[in-house]
């Protein structure tokens, strides 16, 4: 592994609408293990942002603690980032979003960060309908502390040291569906074809977008018997529908065979084109999605893809009725009522 990132840029690298190349969306060199699933997620984020022509400096990257939470350092180095404390990214994201609703909030968390220490914060940020993309790099294991089982590890599996996962596993997608997220999906870090359209749709969606990304840990959870290894996930992954992302400016052509394909218009005008693979699939029905996830799990399969999408849901600021001008841009004249107002207030205390 090289520790110096090449600054060389090929002159014919494709540019997007902003005139930026893929390289303009990269971050610092990853210090994660070679082959780490998280690096594939990073690369999918870079690709998604580049293809969507997102202004890098209009993104705020947020994370908690853990291998997953290091990842924001490895993409979008022109964006501000906030690596907070363990399990508390959701509250920091909430404050940041309340202060300025104009940025795109990309948050990266892990299974320990969201399903254990930060389970409460995760649940409540979902409820709040914060307009953000919340990604969990889910590998079922604690990487930075070397291999302890996470709460997302399937009950009954063993970690590398041979310890058994004794307790009920937590499915964060099911939680997000129950708690009212308006966009819920699961993907696999090894399947960019599925992940990139989901990421793009999540970024275009207004409201709380949750993506659980199975991201194998090559060092501590890639052994036989693990249900989060590359091999296991490859062999057991399934999907209810193929979702493709069609950007705003693309001309919409007829969706083809009726009943099999459906278009969902996202907040910004782009389209999520969904091709059903399972007859019961319904992206507008959260309870159905929960049942599908559970059913596949019982059959030993990992269901991925877009589970639920409610494109017209209100986000926090709509619920709160916040002014359209970001709160961090309001000036003193707007914020401070001034001495004159105090006369009346003082009189109310006499």
């Amino acid at each position, binding site marked *: 592994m090289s520790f110096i990132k090449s600054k060389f840029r090929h002159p014919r690298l494709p540019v997007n609408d902003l005139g930026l190349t893929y390289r303009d969306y990269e971050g610092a060199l990853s210090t994660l293990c070679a082959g780490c699933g998280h690096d594939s997620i990073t690369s999918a984020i870079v690709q998604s942002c580049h293809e969507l022509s997102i202004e890098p400096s209009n993104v705020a990257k947020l994370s908690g603690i853990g291998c997953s939470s290091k990842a924001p350092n490895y993409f979008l180095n022109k964006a*501000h980032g*906030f690596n907070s404390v363990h399990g508390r990214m959701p509250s920091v994201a*909430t404050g940041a979003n*309340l202060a300025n609703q104009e*940025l795109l909030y990309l948050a990266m968390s892990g299974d320990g960060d969201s399903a254990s220490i930060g389970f409460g914060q995760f649940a409540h940020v979902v409820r709040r309908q914060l307009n953000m993309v919340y990604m969990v790099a889910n590998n079922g294991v604690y990487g930075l502390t070397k291999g302890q089982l996470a709460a997302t590890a399937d009950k009954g599996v063993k970690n590398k040291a041979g310890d058994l996962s004794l307790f009920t596993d937590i499915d964060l997608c099911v939680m997000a569906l129950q708690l009212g997220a308006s966009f819920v999906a699961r993907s696999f870090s090894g399947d960019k074809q599925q992940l990139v359209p989901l990421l793009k749709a999540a970024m275009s969606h207004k409201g709380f977008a949750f993506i659980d990304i199975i991201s194998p840990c090559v060092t501590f959870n890639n052994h036989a018997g693990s249900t989060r290894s590359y091999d296991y996930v490859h062999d057991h992954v399934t999907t209810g529908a193929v979702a493709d992302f069609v950007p705003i400016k693309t001309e919409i052509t007829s969706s083809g065979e009726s009943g099999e394909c459906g278009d969902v218009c996202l907040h910004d005008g782009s389209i999520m084109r969904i091709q059903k693979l399972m007859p019961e699939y319904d992206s507008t029905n959260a309870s159905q999605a929960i049942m599908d996830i559970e059913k596949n799990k019982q059959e030993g399969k990992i269901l991925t893809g877009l589970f639920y999408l409610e494109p017209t849901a209100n986000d926090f600021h709509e619920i709160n009725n916040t002014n359209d001008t970001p*709160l961090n841009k*309001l000036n003193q004249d707007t*914020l*401070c009522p001034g001495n004159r107002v105090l006369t009346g*207030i003082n009189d109310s205390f006499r």
Partner: protein
Amino acid sequence: MTDITINTNTEAGDNITAENHLVNEFVVRFANTNGTGSASANNMFAKAILRMGIPVSAKNIFPSNIQGMPTWYEVRISEKNYLGRRGGKSELVVAMNAQSIDEDIDSVKTGGYLLYDSSRALQESQMRADINFIGMPISTICLKEYSDPRQRQLFKNVIYVGALAALLNMDFTLLKGLVRDQFKGKEKLITPNVYALELGYQYAKEHVLCPLSIRVETRDLVNNRILVDGNTATGLGAVFGGATVVGWYPITPSTSVIEKFASYCHRLRIDPATGKKNYAIVQVEDELAAIGVAIGAGWNGARAFTATSGPGVSLMTEFLGLAYFTEIPMVLVNVQRSGPSTGMPTRTQQSDIIACAYASHGDTKQVLLFPESPTECFELTAQAFDIAEQLQTPIIVMSDLDLGMNDHLTEEFSWQDDKAYQKGKVLSAKQLDEVEVFGRYLDVDDDGICYRTLPGTHPNKGAYFNRGTSRNHFAGYTEKSADYVDNMDRLSKKLVNAINFLPVPEIKQGKKNAQLGLIFFGTTSHPIVEAVEQLKEQGLIADSLRIKAFPFHQNIEKFIEEHSLNNKQVFIIEQNRDAQMKSLIVNELQIDPNKLASILQFDGLPVTSDFIVEAVLTQLANNQKNKKTG
């Protein structure tokens, strides 16, 4: 049955006698059951005294409970302007709670009065011979006058306030006017309330020789002062200070800070054109999230705060360390209560000094402000947002339950319209274009305070990764010892320079050579005025110093040195068990602990002047003894 027993055979001296009228200088204590609406009636009484131009203060001594437990409300009326809790027994006790009646009878000063509900007769054994019993069949009156059970309960309180008006010679017209003001907009309530006042007033007039020997007389001593609680002032200060983002979790006694902030925002912060909010308040899942919200918003350039009390501070300490280390401005209001753990959640204390000064693991230091009055709650909270942005660090406003939840007579609020918010070192896009090199942690001005940038400012420059891990000047992760030490030293330097941004100690020094120096902070200033006078009567001249902020100003050291010479004695008065402020002074200023005598009151009630004076005299006597034997 005779309801009224006026005992005339009381002892003379300090006590009240029929001949010796006590005007505008006494305490009325109300004993009620909580959840019965007594607080607003008692408050009406206090406000009526205020409107008569007489200085007044009120202390609500309430349980951690919603309904059915004993609660007390003490109103001190003092034309000498002694507005701290007086302590001792009261001249007049209004006993409306059968549960606490024995205790309440006992709390009357010899020669004083007990106004009680005689619908149920007191036992012979309860009739103290040295006090006057004024029985009034309040429940019976209510039963006769009202049919609705809630009204029967509520108007009991108004009836005794009407009776007090007659007994204490209050301006009854003014009292009725107050009712009209209080129920403005709810006109339907005015007539029945005024009627209830009349019931009490007339009953007292007919059955008791009014006024009593304790009474009030109209004065003009209130001037510009207002009667308000500290939490209201803090919430208002946050509005004026420009706070827009709040994350919070309810906890007594801080809850009303946010509630008042919300209600003032609702009045003053709605965009007139769109009807939309120029603020966002989220009640979050816990205190960890509450401070997380404030930190996220502070990082993103909004003025943000949260309010909590002891247990909340404990939960917030990890985040306080992050905000200190990553240098994020935000304001935390800590309305202190009695700890540790749940402690006495509805009683006051100043016992989070050390927990806040060094909040979080590792080498940390936080900036603290100590308001003494609602006026200062307003001013220092507003100012805290400036200081937070100037220093790029959390500012903790150290209020307490007494200050926050009780009504205090305080200077009216004022604001300088020409004073601009101080936003500190934040680079704009244009400035970023002008600087050659941007490093988030480059100490360009050599004051320990670096330049920060906000997300979304510039397309190519100024972005950095904010992190709780060690970093170099350019916010890059590093584990190099030299980089780490450099950063920690700079943070230390910043906190030393913080003194230039903080309010200076308030020193009151007489012309004559003082024998004593009194150091205190926060609400302890209320009884100090009285204590200094009491000491003067004993021939002891005391200078005083009120601490307003931490890190400490060098004047504190100077004051201690000057008042330790030539057999002088310095006292530190605190409302905690462990002399936390003393420890902090000794630790931070390298003062010899033997120079500082502690006066510690931590029973959950506001410290009194009597307590302070007694402690001073005892210490001085001990000093004398030691000198003789030593």
